[in-house]
Each structure stands twice: as C-alpha cells, then as structure tokens.
C-alpha cells in the first residue's frame, strides 16, 4: 500500500505541506468563508441578500466599482505599456545598469504617505510646479493637479511602475537572445525582430505583470484619501468597505463589500488569464536549453 501510494508521489514528505495548508485553511480560508456567511446575515437590511441589494441599489456604493476600475485599469495598463520599451532597451548589459534599475525601483521605499505629502507639496496650488508655471506665464491660475482623480492616478503610476518594470525586465531576461540573433541572420530588421519574435514571447509575462499591477492598484486606499477626493471622484471601494467596518461598525455590510471587491478583482484576473491561455506558451529558451 505504502509503495503504491509512493508511486503516485504520496509519501511522508507530504507531511511537510501540512503546516502551510493548515495555516492557509485557518487564517485565510476560514475567515474568508466566515465573512462570506456573515455577508448574508445583514444587520441593517432585510433578507439574506439585503447587503448586496443595498450595495447595488445605492449609487453612492454601487459607483465605487466603476470608480475603482476607472483608476486601476488605466494605471495598470499605463505601467505595463510604459515598462515594455524601457525594459526592452535595458535588457542587455551596460555600464550603470544596476544603478539605473535601483533608481527606477527606489519609489518602492517611499511609502504612500511620503508620496502623498510630496505630491501635495510639489503639485499643490503653491507648489514648485505651479509656481514655475505661473512665473513662466504659462497659466493664469494655479492648475489643480492633486486632490482629484489625477493625483491618485499619478500615485498609482509612481508605486506601480517600478514593480511592472522589474517584472517585465525579468521576463525579458528569460527570452533567449539567440532567438533574436537567429531572426537577424534570416534578415529580420529591428522592428520585425521585436514584433515577430520578442513581443509574442513576452506577452504571457506581460499578462501576469498586468494582473499583479492591477491587484496593487485595485486595492488603492490610503492615497485615495490623502491625494484624492475621497467623497467624490476617488471614492474607491476600499474606502466604503473601511467605513462600513470601522465607522458604521456593520461587519456584515463590510464583509459584503469585501466579497464584491474580491469578485470584481477575480473577474478581471480570470479574463486576463483567459486571454493569456490563448497566447503562445512554450519554451522561450533556445533549442538546446
């Protein structure tokens, strides 16, 4: 019996999995299911689906989905699209590459609050940028860059771009340069080499990069409050979830909003993965490994 199980890869080594599986079950799965059940026991609204009905009936709550997607999708798309040409030009070895990568990744260390405070100081009505624009006579009145949609979008680019760039660079590194060289030998120009060889091989990686940056952007919360307009333009779904939980003390509604948030997020992930499944997936190394 033991040997037959071992033939299927089941032996005592699998016991090593137990702590991790138990942990995920107790600390992630159980609370998640608990929240799911709780969301169907409304504290304020009637019926099992009361919270959900209320969420989709009230435009103040319902619109948060569109608002959050309106921030997260453009931000993630921009971060991925901007990463490709930059990473492509940095794929080879050159002097100062490590330094340049380090500088591009540096914003990861800043933290939302520093970015928010910096944006407010830099782009505020009396900030350096508006001051320069006024002095140059380019504008009559200070431009409103922050405390609106653009402030939050800018934050999402600052925090998301380094991440997308690193991942893209990493995926590009996994594509064997020999393939491009082979294409060049066969007479392909730089443009053809990129669009016909590198880009199709990179695309599955870009899908993953998009998903991971989207996950980050979709969860936007502190910056939507600090540099956004949390009551209006940037009333993202995290804000209403937080308010339900910690200002109205309605754990049931908060759980319902959290579930809706997870569902929307997973829907986007599944769509992107579905598209990715249709792309070429195979060895991107050379013929001889």
């Amino acid at each position, binding site marked *: 019996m033991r040997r037959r199980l071992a033939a299927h890869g089941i032996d005592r080594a699998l016991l090593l999995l137990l702590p991790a599986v138990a942990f*995920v079950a107790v600390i992630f799965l159980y609370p998640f299911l608990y929240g799911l059940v709780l969301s169907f026991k409304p504290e304020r609204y009637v019926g099992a689906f009361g919270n959900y009905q209320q969420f989709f009936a009230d435009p103040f709550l319902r619109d948060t989905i569109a608002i959050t997607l309106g921030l997260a999708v453009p931000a993630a798309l921009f971060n991925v699209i901007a990463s490709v040409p930059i990473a492509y030009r940095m794929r080879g070895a050159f002097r100062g590459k490590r330094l340049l990568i380090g500088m591009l990744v*540096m914003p990861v260390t800043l933290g939302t609050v520093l970015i928010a405070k910096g944006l407010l100081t830099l782009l505020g009505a009396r900030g350096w940028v508006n001051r320069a624009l006024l002095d140059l006579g380019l504008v009559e009145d200070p431009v409103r860059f922050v405390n609106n949609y653009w402030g939050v979008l800018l934050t999402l680019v600052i925090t998301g771009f380094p991440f997308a760039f690193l991942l893209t660079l990493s*995926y590009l590194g996994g594509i064997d*340069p020999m393939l491009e060289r082979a294409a060049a030998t066969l007479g392909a120009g730089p443009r053809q080499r990129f669009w016909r060889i590198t880009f199709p091989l990179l695309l599955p990686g870009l899908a993953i990069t998009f998903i991971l940056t989207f*996950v980050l952007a979709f969860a936007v919360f502190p910056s939507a409050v600090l540099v956004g307009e949390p009551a209006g333009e940037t009333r993202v779904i995290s804000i209403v979830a937080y308010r339900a939980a910690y200002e109205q003390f309605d754990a049931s509604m908060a759980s319902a909003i959290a579930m809706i948030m997870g569902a929307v997020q*997973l829907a986007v992930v599944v769509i992107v993965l579905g598209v990715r499944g249709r792309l070429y997936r195979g060895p991107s190394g050379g013929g001889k490994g």
Partner: protein
Amino acid sequence: MTVVARRPVAASPLAWLAWGFVGFFLVFMLALVAAVLVNSLGTRWLDHWLPDGYTTHWYGDAWREFGLTSVMLVTIEIAAAVVALSLLIGVPASYALARRSFPGRGLVMLAFLIPLLLPPVTYGIPLATVLLRHELGGTLTGVILANLVPSVPFVILTMTPFIEQIDPRIEAAARTLGAGTATIFVRVLGPLLVPGMLAAGLLVLVRTVGMFELSFFTAGPGTQPLVVVLYYAAFAPGVRASQSIDAMAVIYMGLMLMLLVAALSFVNPTNLVARLRENT
C-alpha cells in the same frame, strides 16, 4: 558580444519617448523627495520657493510626539516574527511542492496563490472580525497573523522554483551514504537553501514593513507599526505640525531604503522570474 542587437545611433521617436519617460520619472521622483525633505528641514514655509530658515528639530519632535521608540520596536517585532514564521511554515511546504508531484498539487498551489491575488482589504476585513471574536483584535499576535496571510504564500511561491533547481541527486547521494532525513535537511539541504531563504526573507521583510492595509485593520493602540502611525498622522492634518509628519515620512523612507538595499544586494531583481543570460 551582441552585434545585431545594436540599434542605429539616430534613435526612433519611440526610443526618445521611452528615455524621455525615464528621465521625467527620475526628475519627478527627485523633486518629490526633495519637497518632503526640504519641508521636514524648514522652519516656516509659506508663499515662497524655499523655507525661511532651516532646522533639524522636527525630527526630534516627531520622534518624541509619536513615541517612535516604541513604534519602531513594535515594527521590528512584527516584521521579525512574520519573517521567521513565514520561512518556518513556507520552506518545508516548498520542499514538498518542489520534489513531489501528487494528485491535487495544482489545487494546493492555487490555494497558496489566491491570497496573493486578492486585495488585502478583501480578506483583511473578515479576518479582523474573526480576530475580534477570538479576543485577538488589536493584539500583536493578531497583527502578525494577518501579515502572515500573504507572506507564507509569497515564501512558497519564491522558494519552490529555488528548490526545484537544486539537483535531487545530491539528496539521493547523501542517502546512499547513510544520512537520515533529519541529517539531510540540516547538513545537506540547509546550507544550499540559505541564499534562497535570505532572499525570500528579506523580500517578506520589505513587504511587511510596507504593508499598510492588514496592519491598519488589525492593529490597536500600542500595536501599530510605523506605516499605520504615519497614516494616522497624515490623515488628521492640523493636529501635528506638517513638518514633523514629513520628518516621520523621511524616517520611514530611510528604513525602507536600508531594507531594500540589503535585499537588492542578495537578490538580483531581474532574476526573480528567470535567469538572465547576459554573457552568451
């Protein structure tokens, strides 16, 4: 060396756009940090290009007003516990996943992937509710447990490929020479795993110190790490001087910068997904 990869000297408009974006991004980042730094060092800064004078007293003020000594201790305790526990739970699991293919392996992998694909708010709010019911709300244990949710899967997903690339014949050889399972783990695999564990641990450390949402939902008075204290200070403007909030933000940046430099000296960022072949 690569010859065909050379691009013509007259760069295309797209190349200009790409490098232009890099330049703009770097200058903008520099200006952003400078704005916060200048404000944290300035005496009074009203309607001028620069503050009236300079001082460093905001840093001392921030340290005292926000009780940063205990905040730092809390931050370190949380981060250290999360790193140690996530490695302890994650590495054995990665070993099993890397070395065995068993029915349901895909399902187990998916279970580890989902916490990384969901926004922390999604599971953070139900988890905070459950912790409250079990009288763990606001405790250090609660904050550590919450931060482990994405950290354990993160360790597993980074360590599994790392273990896969260690030749299984090394373990087989040790076994033929009479080493037991325990000895193999301590004497053979352990030393081989150290670089991977160091990299995964440092990345978890950076993530945990910067993780806002989960700590924000689960921490209470006295158990708030630096990110949360910083957010509360920035969220209630006017209570404290703007300069001392900026000073605290600079302290946070310094801490993160130190951790990131440490992490990058062990992990080549471009090798996270695949091995780079620069010298072919």
